[in-house]
């Protein structure tokens, strides 16, 4: 321990200042606000939490958020893993495919959603592609279920590249010795994949599930761009963060919005905890 320990706090000053002003203080303030109501910040106990938890629009927001997050992960995680395995099995062109699949992720969500508004247009790309298989025209953003699936499609398109890169990094970290030993023993490539690759991939799958739920619970931009402030049609694209945004900045109900934001935080912590436990048990 040097006598000049304080000098390190100068190095840390920007970070500590940032965390103090833009994380710790707002966290405490948000907690306090969640127990108040109105511009005069009158203390109301748990009323806001009670209100949020019993409100129909919050339940709708929870349902939409979970529905979209669940199916998006169900699509992205397995397909990201399989595509990464396919890329890894190539002897040439790995880099080309990495770039190709990563391009959607570079596109900002606002630009991606703008493009999807046109892709989902009745005379857009999606209906045209489906018509080639004889599937009749759908007006994607007119009906609640197909609108949710539109967001799922957009979010999956955007996130797939990230999953592929993470999976590839993990695949490359598996020692080639395992595969060599297995192929000397005469194991087929499929068996090697089943018995060597998959068990070694649980780490990156876990991280993708955790990050995926954290992102999914915070979903907003996609739904906002396709469905506006109220998540049209009939609030089918109204998400948890949409609720916070509408109540906080539309209705200036800071107390209600803060209570909802704490519920979001608790949900994220619970989900992260469950995911870690679940995957630890499997390992």
């Amino acid at each position, binding site marked *: 321990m040097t006598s000049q320990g304080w000098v390190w706090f100068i190095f*840390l000053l920007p970070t500590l200042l940032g965390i103090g002003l*833009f994380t710790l203080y*707002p966290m405490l303030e948000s907690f306090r606000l969640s127990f108040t109501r109105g511009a005069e910040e009158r203390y109301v106990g748990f009323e806001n939490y009670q209100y949020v938890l019993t409100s129909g629009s919050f339940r709708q927001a929870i349902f939409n958020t979970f529905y979209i997050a669940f199916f998006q992960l169900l699509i992205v995680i397995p397909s990201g893993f399989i*595509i990464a395995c396919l890329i890894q099995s190539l002897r040439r062109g790995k880099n080309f495919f990495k770039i190709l699949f990563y391009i959607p992720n570079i596109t900002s969500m606002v630009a991606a959603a703008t493009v999807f508004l046109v892709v989902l247009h009745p005379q857009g*790309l999606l209906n045209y592609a489906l018509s080639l298989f004889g599937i009749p025209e759908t007006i994607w953003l007119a009906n609640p279920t197909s609108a949710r699936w539109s967001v799922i499609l957009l979010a999956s398109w955007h996130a797939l590249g990230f999953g592929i890169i*993470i999976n590839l990094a993990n695949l490359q970290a598996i020692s080639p010795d395992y595969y060599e030993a297995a192929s000397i023993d005469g194991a087929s490539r499929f068996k090697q994949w089943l018995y060597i690759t998959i068990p070694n991939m649980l780490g990156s799958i876990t991280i993708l599930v955790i990050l995926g739920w*954290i992102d999914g619970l915070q979903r907003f931009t996609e739904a906002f761009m396709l469905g506006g402030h109220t998540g049209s049609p009939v609030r089918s694209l109204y998400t948890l*963060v949409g609720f916070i945004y509408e109540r906080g900045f539309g209705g200036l109900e800071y107390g209600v919005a803060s209570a909802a*934001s704490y519920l979001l935080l608790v949900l994220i912590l619970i989900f992260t905890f469950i995911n870690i436990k679940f995957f630890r048990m499997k390992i």
Partner: protein
Amino acid sequence: MRSMGSSMRRKWEDAVVGLLLLALGMIMITPFLWMISVGFERTANVNAPFPPRLIPYDFSWFNYSLVFENGLMLKAYWNSAVNAFFSVLLSVSSALLGGYAFSRGRFKGKKILFVLVLATMMIPFETTLIPMFIMFNDLHLIDTRYPIILPSLINAMGILLCKQFFDQLPEGLRESAKIDGAGEFKIFFHIFFPLAGPITATLAILSFQGSWNSFVWPLVVINSQDLKTVPLFLSQFSQESGTPLMGVTMATAAVSIIPVMVVFLIMQKYIIQSIALSGLKGE
């Protein structure tokens, strides 16, 4: 030793996998290519280009020139560039200094502070959203660049990556300088910082992309047209004009992502490495 037959088979497998990946990859980037192509379709604002095609029937620069006509896009570009410049400056310096302190510093509370920094990654930004808005509003800084730029001081992932980078450098570098009586700042700026080129570049790219694409927070704090960033301008444009003006909208979306695309295509190796690294370090 591989026999002739199995190496032939391997070649076939590679070809099949390569073609499959190429087909999937083409599907993935079709919306992206279509965006560029619809922008070049002169009549797209009047008639939806149906059936969808990648090569425009009536090629022209008309829509792209319209994007720049009223100067709003250029203004948005300028705003995004200024915000990105200062955000990158703040977040990279704070990460380098902080990462160095956590790597080489000896001071009380180092462990706790490091955990605190990492914990900020778990906290959803929405939980701090409302108090942050109130705070900047009380300071009369809403509708200025400050609320967008200042929170960039927090860069927990950057600190983590920098700490790991500095951890790899030999301790001997410090010892000899210490013997010469150099202070901690001198040691950092004269010895360690000049070696930190690669990590600085990586952090700058990631932070640039984050800043250029950020949407929700600017949406909350910016009202005046003069300060709108590129994603704000695009979202406004696509919600006001949207699919009726398909050609200009797609051209606007394409123009909005040029900077991140260019940076990605030039620096793709760095970017993909750092994405993989940050994902795996998350474990």
